[in-house]
């Protein structure tokens, strides 16, 4: 039996007054899983937990059968696109993007080649020598994306990765990520506020409500009615908006 | 005797000195005896004593730069040279005696300066220009014609530092002032080799002094038995 890529079992964690409560989720290899949910419902905490960010928790998170916290941070091979990007502000965009390769002691030519490829895919070639402090929001977001993608991770965690992009750039990104996913077959777990984005990208979608992962549905069945009134309400919030257009 | 009479006279003078102040510079090495003498003088005469203690170089600079003060009590007459322009008159107080000191028990059997040339004897001396005790050592050893044969492993900048070197067992012999040698781990070699180099602690009147009366009284007091007893208590030898 193959272990699932991500396996979360009875996972709970308390952060200040917020609690992520009894999460159970299993994501198989190559799957794309989207997380929706109101702001503050715990989506980011869930992603951070999968990445093995926290020290005190109950339950378990395993990557391919191994508890994530038992894997040293530097060996987890998780690509993480942080909601606030987390760029290294003392390095240029090029240095940010090739950081992981530098750590792997790749040679200059290889770094350059990979960075150019990323720049091509994410159309950020023109900002390679700028520092993060001078970038626009969308440029920062794509730099963060490039930094994670360049390492070709087995598991890609993305926290609202396209939120700062305009519709046409977004569209391009969807296609590129889909392509990358097809070629390299990474597992993707991402957070979004865009129902349409979730449906277009993901195989399955989970909905977070108040720190609980309530509904897990196939992408096509996202708007299916259910018993859980909170979920219906949340989906309606978006639906209303959609019919107004 | 006449000396006690003099002391009594001073008690009589006390009323007239109350409210006056004497400003004295004194070498840091003599802090204890001189502090006690100053206290006694104040008790007897009511004269305020402001004594600034520091090492000789600092005092010399203070005297030259500020142009203030009444008296300078220096470690030796040599230390008056840099300030000779402002010294009006000086008077010797006590003997300042250089000695040859070794570790207690004298393990290397050093009996005189000539033994310093022995194989394996490591010596620490004061700097030949900057410290009077260093000058004396140089002079004494040169006079014996053995300076270049002595294994001087280091020169120190102050007398206490020379003594420290011996007391922590970093050398075998030193030439230092007699009052520096304290404690049980060291001893003074009984030799007459350095007798010719005994210095005198001078009290020098400064030309900035306007307080002739108090200075005079204090100079006299320095001659009294009270003062001499105190000096002796701290290991200084009174003149004649």
């Amino acid at each position, binding site marked *: 039996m193959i272990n699932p890529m991500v396996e979360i079992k009875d996972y709970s964690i308390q952060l200040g007054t917020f609690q992520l409560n009894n999460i159970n989720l299993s994501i198989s290899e190559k799957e794309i899983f989207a997380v929706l949910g109101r702001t503050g419902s715990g989506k980011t905490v869930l992603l951070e937990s999968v990445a093995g960010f926290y020290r005190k928790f*109950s339950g378990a998170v395993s990557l391919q059968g191994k508890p994530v916290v038992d894997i*040293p941070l530097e060996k987890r091979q998780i690509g993480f696109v942080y909601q606030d990007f987390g760029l290294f502000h003392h390095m240029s965009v090029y240095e940010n993007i090739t950081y992981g390769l530098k750590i792997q002691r790749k040679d200059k030519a290889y770094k350059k080649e990979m960075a150019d490829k990323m720049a091509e895919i994410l159309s950020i070639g023109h900002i390679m020598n700028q520092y993060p402090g001078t970038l626009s929001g969308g440029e920062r977001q794509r730099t963060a994306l490039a930094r994670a993608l360049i390492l070709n991770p087995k598991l890609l965690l993305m926290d609202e990765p396209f939120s700062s992009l305009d519709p046409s750039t977004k569209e391009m990104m969807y296609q590129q990520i889909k392509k990358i996913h097809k070629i390299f077959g990474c597992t993707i777990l991402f957070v979004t506020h865009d129902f349409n984005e979730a449906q277009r990208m993901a195989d399955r979608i989970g909905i977070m409500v108040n720190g609980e992962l309530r509904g897990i549905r196939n992408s096509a069945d996202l708007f299916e009615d259910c018993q859980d009134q909170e979920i219906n309400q949340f989906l309606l919030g978006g639906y209303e908006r959609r019919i107004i257009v | 005797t006449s000396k006690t009479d003099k002391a009594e006279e001073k008690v009589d003078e006390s009323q007239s000195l109350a409210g006056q102040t004497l400003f004295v510079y004194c070498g840091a090495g003599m802090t204890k005896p001189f502090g006690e003498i100053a206290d006694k003088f104040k008790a007897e005469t009511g004269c305020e004593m402001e*004594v*600034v203690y520091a*090492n000789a170089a600092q005092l010399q600079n203070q005297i030259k730069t500020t142009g203030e003060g009444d008296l300078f009590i220096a470690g030796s007459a040599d230390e008056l040279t840099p300030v000779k322009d402002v010294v009006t008159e000086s008077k010797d107080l006590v003997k300042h005696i250089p000695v040859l000191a070794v570790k207690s028990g004298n393990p290397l059997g050093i009996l005189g300066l000539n033994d310093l040339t022995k194989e394996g004897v490591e010596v620490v001396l004061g700097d030949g220009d900057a410290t009077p005790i260093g000058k004396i050592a140089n002079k004494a050893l040169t006079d014996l014609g053995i300076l270049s044969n002595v294994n001087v492993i280091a020169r120190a900048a102050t007398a206490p530092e020379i003594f420290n070197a011996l007391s922590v067992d970093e050398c075998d012999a030193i030439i230092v002032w007699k009052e520096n040698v304290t404690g049980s781990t060291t001893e003074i070699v009984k030799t007459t080799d350095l007798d010719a180099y005994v210095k005198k602690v001078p009290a020098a009147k400064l030309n900035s002094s306007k307080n002739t009366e108090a200075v005079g009284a204090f100079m006299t007091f320095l001659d009294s038995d009270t003062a001499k007893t105190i000096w002796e208590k701290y290991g200084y030898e009174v003149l004649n």
Partner: protein
Amino acid sequence: MKERFSVFSFFEIFTIIITIIVIIFTSVLILAIVLKGLPYLGQAFYSEEVRFAVKLSLYTASISTIICMALAIPTAYALTRTSFPFKKVCQMIIELPLSMPYLVLGLSLLIVFSSDFGKALKELGFKVVFDKNGIIIAQTVVNLPYVIRFIRTAFQEVDERLEFISGSLGATKWERFITITLPLSKNAIITTIILAWSRGLGEFGATLMLVGATRMKTETLTTSVYLNLATGDTGASMASATIILIISLISLFLTNWIGRKNPQESRMKDVNQ
């Protein structure tokens, strides 16, 4: 809930070993002082002279630290946040005395305050040479270049964008400084205060040159250490040094206690690296 610690890496073990070496070496140095001083400590505590020196030391070190900070904080602000001609040159002049032996600074002060300017000050009732004031001035001058340099570095690290945002919310430059720049350099400033105060407590080179040491008048703990050492009374000297250590320990404890962080300012507190 279970706690997890990642295993120590080789690098971490190396840093801890270095730390242990530093601690052992420091402890040995401190012990060498304390062991010599301890037998004389009781006697020292009862001596009026020592008690006076303690008070004078605390007084002068505190005042000189306050003066230092009062001069250094505006200067560091001017050097990092305003533009005026020859700023780089000014900065270098201010930092030039960094490597001056304290003795030389003391002599320099002696020359300056014995000049006509100093005489005039004295006429006005501000006596420096051979006076308590001189101790404060010596300590201030000795510390100032360091303190300016450190606070300048701290201010440089503060994100100017936050100051700008504060300004756009209505804060004047002064208010921006007080509410943003200063709190964000808090740690560096506490550290600098500790430096200045400690150095004030331990300084003697410049002080001896400028004011000498008059018992019960300008004798600080450090000059007392010096004088006792000069008279060969190592025990009493180390007793004074031990008192300085005790004061130091108390102040480190207090600043540690004041500087502790209570609220959780970021999620990193929960993080397992």
